[in-house]
């Protein structure tokens, strides 16, 4: 029967087990993953099961790396994620966090747009590192993704987004993540997408400053193609700054909403 070892098709005898595969192909492996789960007890394999063998600390070749990385992706889920095309408008606190989460799950294509450079004041909540200071965010994000998941197809644009270029920038994606800081820019993007690109989904955020309760940050579906995340009220202002924990809670609500849309889950 056919099974997949490190994502490559192999033919094994009926009655083969995950550990018998390990013994024949990679006896020094110390992690055995069966259909996305690490196992410690042996298991009888069925046709088309996936087995991944990993030796801790071993740096694999690029081909092997992709197979090994996807071993924790759930079969059937990953195929859809790999085909998804998502645009991120703004690569700050929200955008850099959404990008990294989507890159980690192996999203197919990301269009990443921001005009700004990485500044020291960004590091309290954005995914950049000291080495990125002074770099364009559109360049720094490429470096981040290359370190997280080099198999994501990305396109970056160093440009200020406004109503005149939104359609052109995001016409080749299916889902647009609004990840701006400025409320006027947020409104402009949402209005433009809803009015001019109704076939796209927009996943926006409003209200995630401070250290208020985690649990006031919610995801609401306001229209068929419009999701809004946040507490709706906590504005960034003097005395109520933006900080990594709550901004990344909101960002990951956005990322999971994108994932749910990809998987055909229509409700929040």
């Amino acid at each position, binding site marked *: 029967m056919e099974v997949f070892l490190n994502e490559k098709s192999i033919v094994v005898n009926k009655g083969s087990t995950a550990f018998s595969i390990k013994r024949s192909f990679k006896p020094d492996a110390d992690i055995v993953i069966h259909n996305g789960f690490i196992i410690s007890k042996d298991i009888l394999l069925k046709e088309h099961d996936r087995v991944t063998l990993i030796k801790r600390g071993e740096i694999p070749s690029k081909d092997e790396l992709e197979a090994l990385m996807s071993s924790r992706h759930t079969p059937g889920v990953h195929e859809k994620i790999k085909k998804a095309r998502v645009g991120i408008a703004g690569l700050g606190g929200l955008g850099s966090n959404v990008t990294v989460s989507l890159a980690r799950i192996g999203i197919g294509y990301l269009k990443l747009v921001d005009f700004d450079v990485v500044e020291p004041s960004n590091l309290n909540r954005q995914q950049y590192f000291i080495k990125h200071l002074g770099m364009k965010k559109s360049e720094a994000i490429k470096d981040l993704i290359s370190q997280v998941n080099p198999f994501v197809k990305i396109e970056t644009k160093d440009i200020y987004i406004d109503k005149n270029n939104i359609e052109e920038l995001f016409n080749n994606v299916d889902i647009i993540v609004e990840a701006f800081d400025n409320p006027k820019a947020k409104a402009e993007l949402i209005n433009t997408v809803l009015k001019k690109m109704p076939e796209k989904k927009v996943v926006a955020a409003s209200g995630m400053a401070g250290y208020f309760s985690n649990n006031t940050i919610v995801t609401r579906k306001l229209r068929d193609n419009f999701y809004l995340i946040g507490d709706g009220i*906590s504005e960034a202002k003097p005395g109520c700054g933006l900080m990594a924990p709550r901004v990344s809670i909101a960002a990951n609500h956005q990322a999971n909403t994108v994932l749910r849309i990809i998987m055909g889950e229509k409700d929040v």
Partner: protein
Amino acid sequence: MLVNGKKMSFENITILQLLNELNLDMNKVVVEVNLEIISKENYCNFVLNKEDRIEIISLVGGG
């Protein structure tokens, strides 16, 4: 009219006037009238009716 689910009694009021009444900045909102998104350019001449259901989503800064 219903504004975000609340009954309000305004007559012959434009979207822009309603936003002003509610102390909202026209540049930081998304406005839906009877499920249709209204463009910002039309806020000043779009007159609301008694039967209209209006949803106003205000965006706050931060990200």
